[in-house]
């Protein structure tokens, strides 16, 4: 077992523990903090998979924006649910059972697939992945159209978010 594998196992265990805390803790604030921990864990996994760009993007997008938005929402709505009551729907055991069943059956199916045991190819060090990615994002033969559509989506979300969250009664 190499050092990288040990790091991966530790980070994966931490991430999964944090994810379980996200869905099981009663106090929303702690649940949000656990979500941040899980997101950091995913960022470390990205870095281990050799994509520093997406690891850093994960921190910028998820922790810099999404986690802070969620914390804000938790603060603004903190009076609506008391932590003494259960946060779970009545039939949550069925959900747990179904998730576990799907998980184990998918792992079983995947274990029969050849690609499951693939060995990572060594990346060509002369190719700068970010440069290639950037070029393909702006290449009309590549992904220029999806890229533009995503920017329109973000603009729409920006305007929609501002419009929906505004207090219409006050003005």
């Amino acid at each position, binding site marked *: 077992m*190499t*050092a*990288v594998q040990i790091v991966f196992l530790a980070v994966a265990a931490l991430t999964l523990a944090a994810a379980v805390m996200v869905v099981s803790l009663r106090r929303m*604030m*702690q649940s949000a*903090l656990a979500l*941040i921990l899980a997101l950091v864990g995913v960022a470390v996994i990205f870095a281990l998979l050799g994509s*520093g*760009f997406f690891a*850093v*993007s994960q*921190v*910028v997008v998820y*922790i*810099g*924006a999404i*986690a*802070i938005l969620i*914390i*804000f929402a938790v*603060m603004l709505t903190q009076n609506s649910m008391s932590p003494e009551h259960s946060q779970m729907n009545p039939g949550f055991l069925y959900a747990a059972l179904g998730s576990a069943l799907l998980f184990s059956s998918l792992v079983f199916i995947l274990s029969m697939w050849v690609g499951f045991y693939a060995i990572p190819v060594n990346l060509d060090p002369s190719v*700068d992945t*970010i440069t290639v990615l950037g070029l393909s994002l702006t290449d009309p033969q590549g992904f220029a159209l999806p890229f533009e559509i995503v920017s329109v989506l973000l603009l729409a979300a920006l305007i929609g978010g501002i419009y929906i969250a505004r207090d219409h009664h006050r003005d």
Partner: protein
Amino acid sequence: MTFWTDPIGLLDAWLFAVLTGWGLPADVSRIILYILGGFVLATGAMVFTVFLIWLERKLIGRFQDRFGPNRVGPFGIFQTVADMLKIFTKEFITPDGADLIPYNLAPILSVAGVLFVWAVLPFAINMLGVNLNVGVLYVVAAGAIGELGMILAGWGSNNKFALIGAFRAIGQMISYEVPMILTLLVPVMFTGSMGLNDIVKAQNPWFVVVAPLAAFIFFISQVAENARAPFDLTEAESELVAGFNIEYSGLKFGMFYVAEFLHAFTISVLFAVIFLGGWLGPGAEKYPWLGLLYTMIKTTVVFFTILLMRAGLPRFRIDQVMDLNWKLFTPLAIGILIVTAVVDKSLALFTPTIRVLGLLAANLVMLLVTLRFLKIFAQKKRRPLVVPSASTELPDDISEVLL
């Protein structure tokens, strides 16, 4: 490879040889060295803060026509050490009803958010933690972690002043991130890389010459991001008592304090590296110690400017801070980005001198247009002068009114 040409590489090779000599596998000793390097860098930065706090207090004292610390040691240089010892011995007071995990996590995240930046700062050609190929993005990500620390401090303290302070801080920091990132794209565009060391190497001439407006906006946004005067609304004493860190005492408060002072220095280094050519200078490629000296001189100039701003300018109101960002800086930054890209690309075929002159002219035109717009806008906004009319004249007998 000698001490004068590559001190860090020499030390690294020697320690690696020592560790593998003990029979450790190569990758384990590599990881140990990474951890050791991070530890040394972080500790060095924190110890350096002791000096910075003294320097800032001394200089602010001079700006305000007083002596500043002058009792402990020569020129009061050990004042911060004494303060540190005092803060170590203070009691930790946890407020009633505090949310313990966020409350205790917040100071750590605040300091971590600043220290993370130090991993990518190039002090000289080979004196740097790592030349990350996404360095600029990494700096932004580290800022996000600092914001998280603030909001957790505000929430965890169970105090309305802390919460209001945190809301203000987050609103201000997130807003000023927008023009900051947009102007950071200008040097990245010139360089073609996001690595900070590559950005330094590409500065011929310095980027502050070819993109002065972007440099100005970046500088102001960074000062606002650091919540320093004149943008220190987050800790406006007259309104909020102390801001998001009101409930902290002892070393926990000390960590916020260290984070703020170290952040001011860190943004000075960042500005020097990104816009003022970093370690570039005669002989710096051959002798990194010279490069370190150049970086420090440039950093000191920027740091001094920040201190002068803090000493000389009154605090903005919160709506003025937000107006400055959303109505001036963000549109201007978008404009700068587009105009610089077009001008740079269309002048790429000419000689470097023409390119620099063209970029300068473009910046000048943008500045004039902005000033023109500001003038129109300011005239529209200005309140009309109140002229007392006949009906509002004071009655002849003032006692009528009083009775």
